[in-house]
C-alpha cells in the first residue's frame, strides 16, 4: 500500500529565534499514501515546523521537497498551490456563505464581466464533496453544518488543488466520537489516493488507530521515526521525554497546614464532571492536561466566573457559594488568568493602576483614591517580584511578557489570598522570567499559601507542584503524588489512559 516516493520530505531544517534553536536540523519523510504521526511535547517544535511548512516562517537552513521537487514557500497560499495543505484545529470559514463559496473562496470561477460562474462552482464543489462522501451539498450554508462537517469543508478546500501532502493539526479536538470516525474514513480515503498525510495529535489511541508511522520531535530535534505497528505507547512516550530532567525534582516538603479549599463532586455542564480535590495551606497542586481538558473551566468556576451545575466548594471547611469574582476575592481566592493580555491586564493603563485594580475601593483617603497608598503598594510588589519598569506610570502594554505577568501576579498577591490559582503562569514568556516565576510559586507555598497551578507544560508541573492532578476531557483521571508520578504515567493519563 505504501508507495516508495516521499510526498513530502524535509532535509536539515533549522529555524532559530533569538536565544532559542526552535528547529535543529530536522529531517523527515512522509511517503505518498502514508499517515504519518508527528508527536512531541508542547514546545518541542511542532508548531514551528508547521509554520515553516506553511510558509509563515522561512527556515534558516535546509530544504523542503514536495514530490521530490525542492520548493520555497513565501506564504500560506503559496504553500497550498505547491501542494501542501493544512487542516487547522480552529476553523476559518465564512459561516454566512455556502459550502461552495467557502471551498473556492478567493478563486471563484468567473464568466465574462467578472460574473461568478455559479454552475461550474457548484458542479466542481459537488464533485469534491462526492469524494468525501458527505451528506450535504455545495449550496448548504456553512453556518448550518456541524463542527465535523465544517471540518469536511476545510478538507474539501484542500482538495481543490492537487494536494501532495495534507497536514491535520489536532483535528479531533472538537469532534464527537461519531464525527471522529467520519474523519478517519476521509483520511483513509485520501491515503488511498496517494496523498501523504501528517497527523499531529496528543491522543495516543488515535495515533495507534490510524497512523502508519510515528516521528517524534523533542526540544527542536528530530528523534526517530518508527512504524506504528512496531511500537508502543510507552516507547513513544519515552522518545518524547527522553531528556535528562534536571528541571524535575521532587518539591521540597515542608509543613502543610489546614485544608484551605476542598472541592467535592463539582461539575459544570460539559466542561468538567465530578471533580474532587483538596489543597492545603503550603501546598502546590498542579493541574496537567491537554487544552480543552477542563482545567481552566475549573479555575473559572472557583473564581466565580462560571456557575457549577452541581457539587460543592468548601473554604476553610465551610461550604461557600461563589457567584461572582467579587465574592471569590472577598473569600480569599485569587486567579492569575490564562491570558494576561485579554483577561489579566488593562493594557492601556499604567502599571500601578493595573496592580491596585481589585482593591481600588480600599485605597481611599476620604472619598478619593490615595495616590500615596497606591504607589507604596506598587513599589512593594515591584521590589518583591523584581518587576523591571521605568516607573509606575509606564503603560503596561509596553512591558515584556514576563514583567506583565509579574504585574498580574503582584496584583493578586497584594490581595493576600488564601488560595492562589495560576493558570498557565509562564505561557509565552522568556526562559529567565519563567524560572523566576517557578521559584516564586514555590516560595509562596512555603510561606503558607495554598496554590493551584494549571499548566500544559509537563516540566513546569513536575517542577512546581507537590501533587499533580491529571485531567482528560473534563474528568480527573488520577491525582499523582511525588511518590508515584512519572512522565510516562502523566502522559498516558492526560491521553485518557487510566493507570492500571
Amino acid at each position, binding site marked *: 500500500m505504501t508507495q516508495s516516493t516521499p510526498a513530502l520530505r524535509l532535509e536539515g531544517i533549522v529555524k532559530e529565534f533569538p536565544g532559542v534553536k526552535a528547529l535543529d536540523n530536522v529531517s523527515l519523510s512522509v511517503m505518498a499514501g502514508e499517515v504519518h504521526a508527528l508527536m512531541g511535547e508542547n514546545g518541542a517544535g511542532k508548531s514551528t515546523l508547521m509554520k515553516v511548512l506553511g510558509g509563515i516562517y522561512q527556515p534558516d537552513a535546509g530544504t523542503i521537497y514536495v514530490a521530490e521537487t525542492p520548493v520555497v514557500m513565501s506564504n500560506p497560499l503559496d504553500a497550498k498551490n505547491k501542494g501542501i495543505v493544512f487542516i487547522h484545529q480552529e476553523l476559518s470559514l465564512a459561516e454566512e456563505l455556502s459550502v461552495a463559496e467557502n471551498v473556492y473562496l478567493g478563486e471563484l470561477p468567473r464568466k465574462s464581466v467578472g460574473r461568478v460562474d455559479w454552475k461550474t462552482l457548484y458542479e466542481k464543489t459537488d464533485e469534491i464533496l462526492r469524494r468525501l462522501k458527505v451528506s450535504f451539498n455545495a449550496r448548504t450554508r456553512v453556518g448550518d453544518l456541524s463542527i465535523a462537517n465544517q471540518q469536511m469543508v476545510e478538507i474539501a478546500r484542500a482538495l481543490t488543488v492537487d494536494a501532495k501532502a495534507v497536514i491535520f493539526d489536532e483535528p479531533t479536538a472538537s469532534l464527537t466520537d461519531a464525527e471522529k470516525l467520519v474523519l478517519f474514513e476521509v483520511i483513509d480515503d485520501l491515503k488511498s489516493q496517494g496523498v501523504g498525510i501528517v497527523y499531529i495529535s496528543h491522543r495516543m489511541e488515535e495515533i495507534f488507530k490510524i497512523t502508519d508511522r510515528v516521528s517524534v520531535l523533542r526540544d527542536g530535534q528530530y528523534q526517530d521515526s518508527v512504524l506504528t505497528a512496531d511500537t508502543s505507547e510507552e516507547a513513544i512516550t519515552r522518545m518524547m521525554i527522553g531528556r535528562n530532567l534536571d528541571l524535575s525534582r521532587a518539591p521540597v516538603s515542608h509543613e502543610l497546614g489546614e485544608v484551605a479549599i476542598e472541592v467535592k463532586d463539582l461539575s459544570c455542564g460539559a466542561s468538567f464532571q465530578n471533580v474532587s480535590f483538596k489543597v492545603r495551606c503550603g501546598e502546590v497542586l498542579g493541574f496537567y492536561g491537554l487544552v480543552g481538558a477542563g482545567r481552566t473551566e475549573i479555575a473559572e468556576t472557583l*473564581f466565580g*466566573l462560571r456557575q457549577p451545575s452541581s457539587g460543592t466548594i468548601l473554604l476553610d471547611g465551610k461550604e461557600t457559594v461563589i457567584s*461572582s*469574582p*467579587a465574592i*471569590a*476575592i472577598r473569600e480569599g481566592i485569587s*486567579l492569575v*488568568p490564562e491570558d494576561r493580555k*485579554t*483577561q*489579566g*491586564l*488593562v*493594557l*492601556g*493603563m499604567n502599571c500601578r*493602576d493595573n496592580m491596585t*485594580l*481589585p482593591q*481600588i*475601593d480600599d*485605597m*481611599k483617603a476620604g*472619598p*478619593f*483614591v490615595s495616590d500615596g497608598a497606591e504607589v507604596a503598594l506598587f513599589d512593594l510588589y515591584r521590589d518583591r517580584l523584581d518587576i523591571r519598569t521605568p516607573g509606575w506610570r509606564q503603560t503596561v502594554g509596553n512591558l515584556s511578557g514576563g514583567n506583565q505577568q509579574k504585574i498580574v501576579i503582584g*496584583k493578586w498577591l497584594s490581595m493576600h489570598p488564601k488560595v492562589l490559582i495560576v493558570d498557565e503562569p509562564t505561557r509565552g514568556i522568556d526562559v529567565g522570567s519563567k524560572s523566576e516565576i517557578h521559584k516564586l510559586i514555590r516560595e509562596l507555598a512555603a510561606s503558607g499559601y495554598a496554590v493551584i497551578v494549571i499548566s500544559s507544560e509537563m516540566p513546569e508541573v513536575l517542577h512546581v507542584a507537590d501533587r499533580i492532578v491529571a485531567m482528560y476531557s473534563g474528568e480527573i483521571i488520577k491525582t499523582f503524588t511525588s511518590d508515584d508520578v512519572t512522565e510516562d504515567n502523566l502522559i498516558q493519563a492526560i491521553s485518557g489512559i487510566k493507570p492500571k
Partner: protein
Amino acid sequence: MANLARKRILTVMGNQGILIAFVVFMVIFALASPKFLSLDNLQSVVRSSAILGVMALGVTFVVISGNLDLSVGSMMSFSTIVVLDLHDKLGPSLAIPTMYLMTLGLGGTIGFLVGYLRLNSLIVTLGMLSAIHGLTLTYSGGKNMDIDDKAGTWFSFFGQGEILGLPVPIILFVALAAFLGVLLAKTPFGRKVYAVGGNSTAASFSGIPRARTVFTCYLISAFCVATAGLIQASRSMGSQNTVGQGLELEVLAAVILGGASLLGGSGTVLKTVIGVLILGFIQNGLLLIGWPFYIQYVITWIIIILAVWLDISVKRGKFWATI
C-alpha cells in the same frame, strides 16, 4: 531611527495635538478678526458653549466606559419640554426635581439595557434617540411649550442670571466640570470607568462590577442632559420639541476632539472641555471672519476627521493603513 522619530512625533501630537490645534485656531482667528479675542466675545463663546459642554461632560463618562450615547440630543429636548410644561403646573421648585427624576429614568433605562443586558450601545441609544423624540412629541402634543408668566418667576436664573458678573450657565458648566473631573480622575469609581472601558474582561476578572459601572455612567450622562435642558429652558423660557436635535453628534464631536477614544478607556474631563471650546471658537471665529454660517458644519466635520485620524495614527504608529 526614522521610525522611532516618527513615533515620537505621533506621540507628542497625540498627547498635545489638541492643545496645539487650539492655539493655532486662536491665532488664525485673532489675526483675521480683531474682535475675536475681546473679553465680550470670549465670554459669549463660553456661554453659548455651556449647554453643549454640560452634555459633553456626561457623554465623556459613557465614551470612556467603552460605549456611545446618541440619545442625548433628543433627551435634552425632552427635559426642556417637560420642565417648561411642569413649571406652570407645579411651580419651578417642584418642576425642576421632577424633570431631573424623569430624565434619570430615561438614562437608567439605557444603562440597564447596555450594562445589565449587554446590548450594543449604538443600537440602544440610536433607538432611544427616536423613541425619546416620540415621547416628547406625545407629551407636548407636538406644540411648542412656553412659560406663561415670564416676568413673575425666578426660573430664568439658570439661563440668564449672573453671579458676580458671571453668567450662571458658565458657572454651572465649570462647577459640573470640576466635580465630574474629580470624580473621574480621583475616585475609585473613576478608575473603574477607565478599567471597564479599557478591557471589560480584565475588569470583570478583577472583580469590578462592569454592569453597575456602565449603568452609573448613563445616569451621569442623563444628569448632565437634565442640567443642559434646565439651562436651555431657562434661557429661552419656551421651546420647540426639536431644540436638542442634532446635538448628539456635536457632543460626540467635542468628546472625540478632546481625545477620548471611541474604543473606550481613554479621555479626561479637561480634554473634553477643551474639545467643547474648540468647537465653540471655530463656529464663532468663522462667523466673525464672515464665512457663511452653514459652512461651520463642513469645517467641524473636517476637524473631527483629522482628530480621529490622528488618534488612530498614534495607536498604530503609522499614518496610513496597511492591508
